[in-house]
């Protein structure tokens, strides 16, 4: 058993929620007290160990406390009680471009961030070319970072954090940003990190991606740690399930089929695809509504459809079987898509089963005519057509006649 790189021991973090914030002496003097506030417990007695060399995932909905926890580990926030022990250097990538100063150039920011991590200058000199190379920002490295696009910001941030070679790397949602190619390079970098025995902690609300990366996943729910099945398979129930139902056993599997009905993992943009849901239910489910959703790694829902909207409500679902959702032309941009499925009742109020299949759909796109965005719409540009009226007015001016008179008559 490896030594723990990070030990989180009964950590509780409370925030003050101010009903009316007064951040001024004037207001404080007038009211003779600081603002009244309510306490909000963001982390409630959280304890866990992250073994050295492991990749650890923290999942949870927005506001579940995962970012707070990362910030506590990064020493940005101090817990109200409990202790955190970290062994080794820690680098954190929290939100876009951690700690960049907008007025400074990329180069200066790299050195600044390095010195924050107490890495001597000569070491950075040696690693500098690799950082620029990985970030792929070329000559922009000598421009102030306020000129950077958000993509460049993220790439440089990731490049710096990973190339400074920390013992522990904390990442919050960031890999989800950037294009598919950069995501691939990030995943590669993670693998390299692992091989070198570094510890990585990733927080995300996209369970599927985290799970495919991590040795161990813990889920945070309203500041409390909830156990997630320790055997990391791609199929995990989503947190939105209704209590009391043995949900995982209803939607039992998912197949991605190409036009010939073969199981595939990769689909090209514009090709037909069929998503086949397998179900098994010992108790009859009356008038079930099936739902399928495709989510990007950033958590954006790219597609969602209920079978009820498509006028399919079977009378009853019983035993085992499968349901197909056929998509004639997959109009999605290249990338990884998380597939989520659910079985609801026909009022859509009760969820019989809901689960994520992880990032099971991988879309690739050969066409370069549309390479950014979420959808590939097959757009076509026409030739420029000069506006007739504008041209006509111009002519009239040249003739020396009053420009407006013609249109007035027409009006």
């Amino acid at each position, binding site marked *: 058993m490896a030594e723990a790189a990070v030990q989180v021991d009964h950590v509780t973090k409370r*925030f*003050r929620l101010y009903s009316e914030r007064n*951040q*001024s*002496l*004037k207001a*404080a003097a007038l009211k003779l007290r600081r603002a009244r506030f309510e306490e909000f417990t963001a982390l409630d007695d959280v304890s866990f160990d992250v073994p050295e060399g492991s990749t650890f995932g923290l999942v949870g909905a927005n506001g579940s406390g995962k970012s707070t926890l990362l*910030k*506590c*580990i*990064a*020493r*940005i*926030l*101090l*817990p*109200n*009680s*409990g*202790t*955190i*022990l*970290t*062994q*080794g*250097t*820690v680098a*954190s990538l*929290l*939100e876009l471009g*951690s*700690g*960049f*100063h907008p*007025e*400074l150039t990329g180069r*200066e920011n790299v*050195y*600044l*961030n390095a*010195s*924050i991590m*107490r890495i*001597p*200058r000569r070491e950075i000199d040696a690693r500098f070319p690799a950082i620029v190379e990985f970030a792929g920002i070329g000559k922009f490295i000598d421009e102030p970072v306020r000129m950077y696009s958000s993509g460049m910001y993220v790439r440089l941030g990731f490049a710096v954090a990973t190339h400074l070679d920390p*013992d522990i790397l904390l990442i919050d949602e960031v890999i989800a940003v950037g294009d598919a190619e950069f995501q691939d390079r990030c995943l590669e970098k993670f693998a390299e990190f692992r091989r070198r025995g570094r510890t990585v902690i990733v927080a995300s609300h996209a369970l599927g991606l985290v799970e495919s990366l991590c040795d161990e996943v813990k889920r945070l729910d309203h500041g409390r740690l909830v156990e997630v099945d320790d055997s990391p398979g791609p199929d995990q129930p989503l947190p939105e399930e209704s209590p009391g139902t043995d949900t995982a056993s209803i939607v039992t599997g998912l197949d991605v089929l190409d036009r010939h009905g073969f199981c595939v993992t990769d689909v090209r943009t514009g090709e037909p695809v069929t998503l086949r849901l397998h179900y098994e239910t010992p108790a009859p489910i009356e008038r079930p509504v099936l739902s399928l959703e495709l989510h990007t790694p950033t958590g954006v829902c790219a597609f969602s459809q209920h079978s009820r909207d498509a006028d399919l409500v079977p009378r009853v679902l019983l035993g085992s079987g499968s349901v197909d959702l056929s998509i004639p032309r997959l109009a999605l941009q290249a990338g990884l898509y998380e597939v989520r499925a659910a079985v609801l009742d026909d009022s859509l109020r009760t969820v019989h089963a809901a689960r994520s299949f992880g990032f099971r759909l991988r879309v690739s796109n050969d066409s370069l005519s549309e390479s950014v965005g979420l959808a590939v719409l097959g757009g076509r540009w026409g030739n420029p057509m000069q506006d007739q009226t504008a041209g006509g007015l111009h002519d009239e001016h040249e003739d020396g006649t009053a420009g407006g008179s013609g249109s007035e008559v027409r009006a």
Partner: protein
Amino acid sequence: MTGIRRTVVTIHPAGPWGGPSALRELLASRELLGNLTLRELRSKYRGTALGQGWSLLHPIALLAIYAVVFSQILRVRPAVGSPSGLHSFVLWLATGLLPFLFFSTVVTQGMGSLVGNANLIKKVYFPREAIVLATATACLVTFLIEYTVLHVAVGLAGAAISPARLLVTLLLVALLFLFGTGLALIGSVLNVFFRDLQHLLTLVMMAWLYATPVIYPIALVRAELGADSTGFEIYSMNPMAGFVESFRDLVYDGRMPDFLMVGYLALVTAMVLVIGHVLFRALEGSLAEEL
């Protein structure tokens, strides 16, 4: 691990006093301090036509204005420097005004530095004092340039410059730097909680300037209040009065300062630093939340 000493960090709820580990940590971030200072110096004047020239223009303009108003219109007549024999209102004014401006920028900019660097504080950990210290150090660099120019001017005007006095001057500069930094530490954390403190500070600094014998000779106050009066004693408690008078002694008059006064200044500086450090440590933990 194979012989490599790894940094083990225990993160626990904020305590009031960081202890020696806090200072050790600050010392370990020397390089960061250097980089932050450089950043401060670079970003302050980047994108302005005069660049670094601005930092010199401000004191020169103030000197010119005060010189015209106080020597030509209000007829302030400081005593001839003894033993240096200097007789120049501008040089006399500069020896006191430059240190005061240095002090006032350290406090003003240091106070706003945490709020100004919220972006950095909320995203990465490093000893937060480094930001205040770097801002103050950047001011120190500018001040050292100004004061070197002043020394050259004093030398050209005919005063003898002695290495012993230069050494004491440097010591006083260090004291003034620490005094200003201590106040900046206090101000910077308070400013995070009360954002309008910055406006108040501008007023305080203006009042402080006039409560200090910078633009008028201390002899005028002594004559008005009486040298042994309680009023004059209270007036002299102002550490800035001590600093300005000591700088005048050293640079303008060309003599050693009153060492009892220097001792008093050192004591006040030590007190301010300790209060600043303790207050900063106590509130440091909640900075990322409050910003």
